[in-house]
């Protein structure tokens, strides 16, 4: 009995140990993985798992960045004792490269917060020093854009939404700014015919000092102002997507009476939500409307023309490849893609933020999908997941995402895999396929199904003249056109290498045919007699055989009868003669 109890006790302890070990190891793996499911789309637009290219680096709340200093009377950044010490409804983030500072539109707190590159508070602006309209304080600023001029002046452009104005002001110190220009609602009929309100949200300034503003419920494009604040017109409107609904309306219009026509709404394009400008001065826009396919993301030139509006551009796809609403396990809801912000980083990568799922889609400059990361969760407790992702910004290879509901700033930094991937893509896009090869190899070592890596390695092999190898790589990533090119060279090479054999074979064939025909003419070789002109006799079935036998028997019987009759007649005749 005792031994049995002992055994049981040992068993219990052992199982407890196993459980403990497995629990801890589970916890360890849970720590090591990212808060999101990393995936990418393959050739057939199927989502396939991929390595994580970005990992959560840190999360900054108002406390982390030192917003409490604004309340501390002894601090140089003191504003007042009841200034909020947390963010509220952040709508925009902007990174200024010269100062290496982040500017955040702390919208519901009506202020612009300025952070250094370590995400520590260095300034805060709640209003301007003087104003023609008399309104000094910001009211729900939705967007901020900063330019550092050559003389060192820090110029802020602020979309002061609820005050219906765009402000251009110079930051004189950490807390005050001097008003340079105040742009109110344009009086031009061009503007007022399109919109009754003027609620500038996102602001962008090009190198010539032109100011672009995305305004709430204005679908004619962004409002464009010159450096003096004069309204110039609208810039880069989206087109109307031709849907079944639009076609139906268009047909209905033909038959409708004037009164009916009056009550019908005209088809309006969806407005774009946000934009960014790249180093070359191209402006990229993104449209937040659910599952927008028409003009979801555009690359506009100075004239407002979408340079992706061509055959190649029509193939581009941004965001999740879904139709209608699709189930998302992370939030346990159905969602439609809503591209809320776009950012072009210093290397030309296009980062697009999806509000619905909190995912960031990273594309290279030719709009090939590089990686996807980020997620959303309804409970705001997971570090690195979002609840109301409003804007993103990139700097130092990191991506900064502001959340207007969790009220924090999340920093995603590249993993080792991600840095190899980005480096490889950059070299690949420059056409330096062979230089990119070691990086692609590193990528492929970490993610064997990465089709971009296979494409890159294939192109490198093609450049080096290893056509067979290139064909294998292209086959793996299903790059049909590239495979076709490699195959063309391979075929050419094969023909060159085996030219003598091929040539000899062809010559032999021709000579052979010639000789044989000659011999045939002379009659030395007999022409093959065409076999069986007649149908070969089928094997007769039993029935047929029986039938034939019967026929034969009948025939024989008939003949015998006839013979007998003849004989009888003869006999009769003989008898007659005898008589």
């Amino acid at each position: 009995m005792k031994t049995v109890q002992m055994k049981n006790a040992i068993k219990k302890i052992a199982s407890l140990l196993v459980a403990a070990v497995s629990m801890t190891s589970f916890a360890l793996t849970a720590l090591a993985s990212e808060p999101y499911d990393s995936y990418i789309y393959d050739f057939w637009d199927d989502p396939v798992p991929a390595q994580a290219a970005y990992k959560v680096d840190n999360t900054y709340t108002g406390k982390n960045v030192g917003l409490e200093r604004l309340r501390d009377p002894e601090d140089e950044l003191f504003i007042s004792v009841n200034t909020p010490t947390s963010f509220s409804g952040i709508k925009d983030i902007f990174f200024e490269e010269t100062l290496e500072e982040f500017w955040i539109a702390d919208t519901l707190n009506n202020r612009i917060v300025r952070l250094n590159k370590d995400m520590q508070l260095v300034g805060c602006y709640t209003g301007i020093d003087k104003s023609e309209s008399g309104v000094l304080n910001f009211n729900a600023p939705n967007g901020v854009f900063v330019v550092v001029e050559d003389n060192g002046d820090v110029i802020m452009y602020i979309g002061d939404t609820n005050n219906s104005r765009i402000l251009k002001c110079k930051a004189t110190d950490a807390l005050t700014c001097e008003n340079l220009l105040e742009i109110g609602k344009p009086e031009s009929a061009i503007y007022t015919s399109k919109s009754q309100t003027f609620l500038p949200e996102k602001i962008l300034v090009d190198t010539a000092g032109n100011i672009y503003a995305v305004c709430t419920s204005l679908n004619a494009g962004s409002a464009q102002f010159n450096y003096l604040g004069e309204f110039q017109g609208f810039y880069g409107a989206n087109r109307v997507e031709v849907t079944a609904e639009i076609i139906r309306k268009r047909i209905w219009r033909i038959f409708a009476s004037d009164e009916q026509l009056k009550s019908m709404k005209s088809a309006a394009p969806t407005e774009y939500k946000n934009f960014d400008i790249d180093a070359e001065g191209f402006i990229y826009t993104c449209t937040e409307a659910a599952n927008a396919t028409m003009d979801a993301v555009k690359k506009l030139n100075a004239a407002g023309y979408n340079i992706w509006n061509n055959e190649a551009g029509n193939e581009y796809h941004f965001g999740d490849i879904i139709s209608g609403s699709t189930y998302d396990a992370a939030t346990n809801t159905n969602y439609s893609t809503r591209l809320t912000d776009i950012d072009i980083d210093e290397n030309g990568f296009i980062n697009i933020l999806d509000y619905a799922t909190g995912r960031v889609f990273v594309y290279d400059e030719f709009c090939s999908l590089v990686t996807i990361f980020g997620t959303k969760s309804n409970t705001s407790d997971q570090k690195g997941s979002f609840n109301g992702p409003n804007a993103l910004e990139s700097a130092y290879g990191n991506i900064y995402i502001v959340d207007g509901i969790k009220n924090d700033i999340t920093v995603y930094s590249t993993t080792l895999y991600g840095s190899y991937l980005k480096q490889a893509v950059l070299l690949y896009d420059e056409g330096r396929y062979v230089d990119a090869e070691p990086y692609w190899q590193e990528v492929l070592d970490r993610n064997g199904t990465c089709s971009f890596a296979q494409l890159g390695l294939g192109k490198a092999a093609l450049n080096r003249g290893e056509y067979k190898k290139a064909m294998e790589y292209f086959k793996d990533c299903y790059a049909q056109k590239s495979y076709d090119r490699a195959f063309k060279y391979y075929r050419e090479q094969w023909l060159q290498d085996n030219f003598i054999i091929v040539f000899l074979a062809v010559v032999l064939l021709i000579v052979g045919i010639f000789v044989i025909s000659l011999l045939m003419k002379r009659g030395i070789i007999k022409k093959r007699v065409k076999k069986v002109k007649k149908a070969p006799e089928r094997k007769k079935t039993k029935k047929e055989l029986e039938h034939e036998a019967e026929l034969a028997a009948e025939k024989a019987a008939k003949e015998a009868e006839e013979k007998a009759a003849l004989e009888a007649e003869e006999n009769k005749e003989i008898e007659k003669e005898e008589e």
Partner: protein
Amino acid sequence: MYEFTPLGWLKHCVFHPIEGFEDLRWKKQGSMKIAMTIVVLFFIATVADRQLIGFAFNNAYTKVFNVVPLIVQSFVYFFTWVIANWSVCTLLDGEGRLKQICINSAYALVPYIVSLFVSVIISNFMVLDEAIWLNAVSLLGLGWSIVLMFQAMKAVHQYSFLKTFVCIVLTLVAMLLILFLLILLLSLFQQVYVFFYSLYTEISYRIRG
């Protein structure tokens, strides 16, 4: 007049679209075995066209191979065609019997099948720039087969040109009807099956409980 082997008759029909099938009819020739072989080859050609065609030319979703659509595309379509044609033409004074329709239809398919095989083979040696040759081969095969099918139907039923055309259009309509009824029947049986299965589970729970 003509004395051929069964295969010789096939060759005669394919290369003499105008009188071939008429001769076939008057000589009471045509082999069911060969016809069935052709249908099987048709199926194989459909599979080859999906699986073995040159990589650059293959637009199919090759991740998954599902044979059912290919069976439908070859066997089901062929036999539906035969049955639909027989049903329509029996009502329209056609002289063809089911077996003759089957044999003639199969013989008429030969150029198309051959073109499928040929394009599968040469697509493995060709690049996309030369795709026009592939298109030419398959279009030639298809056109030839259409002409043959028309002549075959004309001969087997002893129709005029116009009547053949009308009967082919009606046959296509009848094919749609047959396939529609088949699908309806299948879903019906599915529901019957589900009903009996739920009955069975219900009873088995009660017995156990």
